């Protein structure tokens, strides 16, 4: 059961990554990237690394996405 | 003389001009007279010091002294033997004459503040080449001299000079790299590059051959060997005349000197002979002789013609070197001497003419013998010596060379010498004969209707200092040809025997 969940999550990850590559709207890309980060945090939880998961959720997803949105707001939205 | 004293004297001979160069450069700011005086003084002092080594050499002394080690097995060392003394004394002598000549010649030129230090520095590095005790120090001084001489080549700073200089520089660096490659192969094969340990390479190997070819390229380049001579006819004529005299008279010889060192001290000449590597040298030498002479014929600029002639004359030295017997080697070394005198005299004479009249084109030199009889007389003497007219030194060297060629049963080489002498005659006589037996071009035109009237041509010789140098050099060609037991010939004989006898090792 957990194996299946893991595989699903990983597939999600890959879809998100490809989505980031293809979406031309940068804001959507950042949002997809946050989703990617959160799924990653979930996977790490699955892999019994809760500490890493927490840091990823907070820093890798939260702070990084915030910074990116700030950058986009100062530059432009579409690629 | 103790060995320590000899080493000390050698170091002074090399370092003194090198140290004096910046001093002269600085003295330029104080006064021109001081600068000139210092330059001549340095040249003279170097000559005197070099000559003090003569007694030591006459007693058959050989010095090989290591100064300090740069990296393991690679050291800077000093060597004195017959060969180095011959070349060093020759170089300092020609410098001694060329420096005072420069004083007069350069009075019309710009940037003397740069010229004299460089001239003196080159003297030091030249002596360094001859006194080097290992290939590495030889290489160091060789590169030093070549690169510094660049400043002499481009002295005029015309478009043409800069172009010739660039060619010279690139070729020099290619040559330097070839030397480096050859040297490193020798180091790899033999574990040392010292000249004092006897032939380093005694077995045949591909790398050994590669190294030999590299040395041929590196030293041959400087000696103007075909097909690496291309820089020479451009670079020598554009330099100021005293510098051309030194470039042709002495610096070409450093290449020949390097080859002699390589042939006898790095390789065993028996090895070269056994595997016919010497044939490469012989073939190149023959081509060099014939090509140099043939192209010289087509030149209309007097200095360019002299430069091509240098190429063919250096071919004699290489040819003599490729035949391993006493006569041929003696001839080669004596030709180094006689060519130095002849060619320096020719270049200095040509320089005087250019200095006085501004004429460079051979066609314009008609009747110049009336205007400058002494200069042109010396020119004629040196040119006849080049051709090989009997009582002159050029004859003696060619004769000895020919004897050497016959000794090994190579009459073909004698034929080459004869053809080249003929060619020499073909391109020198058209300068000399019109100079004395025709009237100057502008006078002929003016008086063409009035042939009986012999126009008076005012004798206008160049400055006395210039004349002195030319006359001394020209009389040298006469003196060394007339008296076969002279010092130069004696040294050549001794050196040849010394080299063939294993270099006193």
């Amino acid at each position, binding site marked *: 059961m957990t194996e299946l969940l*893991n*595989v699903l999550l*990983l597939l999600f*990850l*890959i879809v998100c*990554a*490809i989505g*980031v*590559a293809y979406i031309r709207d*940068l804001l959507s*890309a*950042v949002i997809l*990237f946050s989703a*990617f*980060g959160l799924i*990653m945090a979930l*996977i*790490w939880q699955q*892999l*019994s*690394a*809760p*500490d*890493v998961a927490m*840091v*990823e959720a907070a*820093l*890798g997803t939260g*702070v*990084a996405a915030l*910074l*990116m949105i*700030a*950058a*986009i707001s*100062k*530059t*432009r939205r579409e*690629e | 003389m103790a060995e320590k004293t000899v080493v000390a004297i050698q170091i002074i001979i090399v370092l003194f001009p090198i140290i004096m160069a910046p001093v002269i450069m600085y003295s330029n700011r104080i006064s021109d007279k001081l600068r000139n005086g210092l330059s001549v003084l340095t040249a003279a002092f170097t000559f005197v010091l070099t000559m003090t080594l003569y007694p030591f050499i006459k007693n058959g002394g050989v010095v090989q002294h290591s100064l300090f080690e740069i990296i393991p097995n690679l050291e800077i060392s000093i060597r004195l033997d017959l060969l180095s003394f011959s070349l060093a004394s020759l170089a300092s002598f020609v410098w001694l004459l060329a420096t005072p000549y420069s004083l007069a010649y350069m009075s019309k030129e710009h940037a003397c503040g740069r010229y004299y230090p460089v001239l003196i520095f080159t003297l030091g590095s030249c002596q360094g080449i001859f006194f080097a005790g290992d290939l590495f120090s030889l290489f160091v001084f060789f590169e030093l001299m070549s690169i510094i001489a660049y400043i002499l080549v481009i002295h005029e700073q015309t478009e043409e000079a800069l172009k010739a200089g660039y060619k010279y520089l690139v070729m020099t660096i290619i040559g330097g790299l070839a030397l480096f490659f050859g040297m490193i192969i020798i180091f790899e094969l033999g574990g040392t590059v010292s000249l004092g340990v006897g032939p380093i390479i005694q077995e045949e190997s591909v790398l050994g051959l590669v190294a030999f070819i590299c040395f041929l390229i590196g030293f041959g380049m400087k000696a103007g060997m075909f097909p690496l001579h291309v820089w020479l006819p451009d670079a020598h004529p554009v330099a100021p005349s005293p510098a051309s005299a030194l470039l042709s008279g002495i610096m070409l010889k450093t290449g020949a000197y390097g080859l002699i060192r390589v042939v006898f001290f790095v390789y065993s000449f028996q090895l070269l002979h056994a595997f016919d590597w010497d044939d490469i040298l012989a073939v190149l030498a023959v081509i060099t002789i014939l090509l140099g002479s043939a192209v010289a014929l087509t030149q209309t600029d007097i200095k360019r013609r002299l430069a091509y002639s240098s190429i063919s004359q250096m071919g004699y030295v290489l040819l003599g070197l490729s035949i391993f017997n006493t006569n041929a080697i003696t001839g080669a070394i004596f030709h180094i001497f006689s060519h130095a005198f002849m060619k320096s005299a020719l270049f200095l004479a040509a320089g005087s003419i250019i200095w006085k009249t501004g004429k460079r084109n051979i066609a314009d030199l008609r009747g110049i013998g009336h205007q400058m009889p002494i200069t042109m007389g010396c020119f004629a003497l040196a040119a006849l010596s080049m051709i090989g007219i009997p009582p002159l030194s050029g004859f003696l060297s060619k004769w000895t060379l020919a004897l050497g060629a016959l000794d090994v049963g190579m009459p073909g080489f004698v034929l080459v010498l004869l053809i080249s002498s003929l060619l020499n005659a073909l391109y020198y006589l058209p300068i000399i004969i019109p100079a004395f037996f025709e009237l100057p071009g502008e006078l002929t035109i003016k008086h063409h209707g009035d042939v009986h009237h012999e126009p008076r041509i005012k004798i206008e010789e160049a400055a006395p200092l210039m004349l002195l140098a030319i006359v001394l050099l020209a009389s040298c060609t006469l003196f060394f040809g007339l008296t076969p037991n002279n010092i130069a010939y004696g040294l050549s004989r001794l050196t040849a025997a010394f080299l063939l006898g294993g270099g006193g090792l």
Partner: protein
Amino acid sequence: MEMLSRLIHNYFYLAAIILFVIGMHTMLTHSNMVKKVIAMNIMDTSVFLLFVAIGYVRGGKPPIIDGIGETLYVNPLPGALILTGIVVAVSISAYALSLIIKIQRAYGTVDCDEICQIRGDE
């Protein structure tokens, strides 16, 4: 075939490598700088995933000692390393983003191709 089955068995590794390649590809081919930074993060995170997956022991518990005497923990070292890694990655992207804002001010665009064009015109 054997290799394929091994890859499928280690599906975490496989996914991590796929993500790494996607990230790197996006980073190098897209000309928009913000996109490059996002892709850089994806690339880094995928390597972290690989690291954590290496440390994972099937059925292992998080390495928290609570006194009950668990016997099977996952390897804690990769987790500790990755914490450092995440912080470094975030600081790099923060720095990159600040550069992007400066570049926007200097060139009026954050697209590498356009910048090349501008510089070519100069």
